[in-house]
């Protein structure tokens, strides 16, 4: 009797979680497992995968000059600027927004959030015209007009500028879910905490921020941080969209996501591409865990 009751309970719950668990397993769990398996094989999509042990990983670390010379440093540079940069910017903006009354806040929040709801395919329309390489391009025309440059620059085709443009464009649309979470977090802090803080001798907004605001919203800060890490590594595709080519000109904007697509869908070496995927997943997971350490309340 007891046993059948607990079984019923389990089945009851399964009706509710079942659909999610099935989708989650098929499209998230299994792909990760398959990616890990494929990373130990040679697989050209035509013949069945051949097990080759650690060879892909060894090649990645020892043979792949492009990975070592361009992809890894680019990924590092891009992530360092966009990840922490975008995160600090989101927090700062959320904090500024919390200092003004509700009505104007809603309007300004909308303006600041609106870039993150535009699809990157749609924005290509704007960026390609603004950064267009001839003298009629908006940026070129502006800089020529004020005399900073003397001839038009091929912005998105130039290895020198592509990375900088990628960073600016990505920062521009990095006020997403994490930003909203942090804004909500700040707004929901109990005002009495501040009153108590002032009685205890807090003197200005900076102290208020450090001693009350941040400690009171650590969970939202963590959520924002995890979203920033994931967003950063997902955003890498922008380089290919801007320059219109994979690989990007002289690999200047090549980051790990592009390297995976290059090997997986252009060269059809899916085993090798999977090895790069596995490395990427480990990096994202590791960085998120570091954020966890930084913001965890269990310390």
């Amino acid at each position, binding site marked *: 009797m007891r046993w059948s009751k607990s079984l019923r309970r*389990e089945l009851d719950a399964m009706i509710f979680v079942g*659909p999610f668990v099935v989708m989650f397993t098929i499209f998230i769990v299994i792909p990760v497992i398959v990616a890990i398996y*494929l990373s130990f094989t040679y697989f050209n999509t035509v013949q069945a995968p051949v097990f080759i042990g650690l060879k892909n990983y060894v090649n990645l670390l020892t043979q792949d000059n492009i990975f070592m010379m361009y992809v890894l440093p680019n990924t590092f540079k891009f992530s360092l600027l966009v990840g922490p940069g975008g995160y600090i910017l989101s927090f700062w903006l959320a904090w500024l927004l919390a200092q003004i009354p509700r009505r104007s806040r809603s309007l300004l929040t909308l303006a600041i959030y609106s870039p993150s709801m535009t699809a990157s395919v749609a924005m290509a329309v704007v960026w390609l015209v603004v950064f267009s390489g001839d003298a009629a391009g908006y940026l070129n025309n502006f800089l020529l007009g004020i005399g900073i440059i003397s001839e038009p620059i091929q912005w998105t085709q130039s290895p020198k500028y592509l990375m900088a443009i990628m960073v600016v464009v990505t920062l521009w649309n990095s006020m997403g879910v994490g930003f909203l979470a942090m*804004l909500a977090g700040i707004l929901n802090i109990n005002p009495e905490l*501040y009153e108590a803080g002032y009685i205890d001798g807090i003197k200005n907004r900076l102290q208020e921020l450090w001693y009350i605001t941040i400690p009171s919203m650590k969970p939202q800060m963590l959520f924002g941080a995890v979203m920033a890490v994931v967003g950063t590594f997902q955003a890498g595709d922008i380089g290919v969209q801007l320059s219109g080519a994979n690989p990007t000109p002289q690999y200047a904007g090549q980051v790990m996501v592009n390297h995976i697509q290059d090997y997986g869908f252009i060269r059809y070496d899916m085993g090798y591409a999977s090895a790069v995927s596995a490395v990427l997943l480990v990096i994202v997971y590791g960085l998120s865990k570091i954020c966890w350490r930084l913001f965890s309340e269990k310390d």
Partner: protein
Amino acid sequence: MSSFQGSKINPATFNRSQIKFYLFLIALAVFMIMPIVFMFSQSLKPINELFLYPPRFFVDNPSLKNFYDLINVTSVTVIPMTRFLFNSIVVTGAVVFLSIVISAMAGFALSKLKFKSKGVIFEANIIALMFVPASVAIPRYLIVDGLGLTDNMLGHIIPLLAMPVGLFLIKQFVDQIPNDLIEAAAMDGAGNFTVFRKVIIPVIMPALATVAILAFQTAWNNTETSEIYMNTETLRTFAFYMTTLTGNLENKVAGQGIAAAAALIMFVPNLIIFVIMQSRVLDTMAHSGLK
């Protein structure tokens, strides 16, 4: 309250000390929306203004000709643009509806029902928050292909239904509902389904609205499923059609206005939905904390 001169967080009224915050915020907001304003302006430019040298930011004689051309002229393919738009609307509608239902049911179970695998599922979902779909595009393709979803409308929909962030936000929101409320309903003889429908759903509307927005953005802006899973042109979506309009755009000045018009069609639904649901989104996000 008048003796308390400290925190100005979430103030009720305007105060002169807020001016410096306004200055920063307005400057940044202008910077943020400038590209979007440009998109509007570009989409309304008649062809002679697109060719203007030096180029101008704002439109002088706005016209709707670009929208007209977008609908009537099929420049890249023989398929009318409305077909792609139709596909996008169907796909997005299905993804939004189904992902809300699936996430809400799972969120309720993970928060309020007691069962053995609960801990494991929740932990797995937390780890999946850190998941980068692009990194497993290859195995995903193999699975979609194996399930017969390539060249099939369902291939746009089914792979997007598991949304770890959606489940997480709903679960956190359901956590706020007092257990007494559920027990009271159970006392009256309500089963899990009745509790879910009559007690939970009405209360978690803000969270559902938030998940709807996120699902909408994911589905509406998605090009990957068209690119990788669909070979038949007529099955592709509007977002994918966009990419064909922007290819080699720098050298096709005349196409820039049409592309901007299409970009606007991509953008405006996102904007409208967010404007309608903004306050509900912030309600939900207040519970988004990770511990």
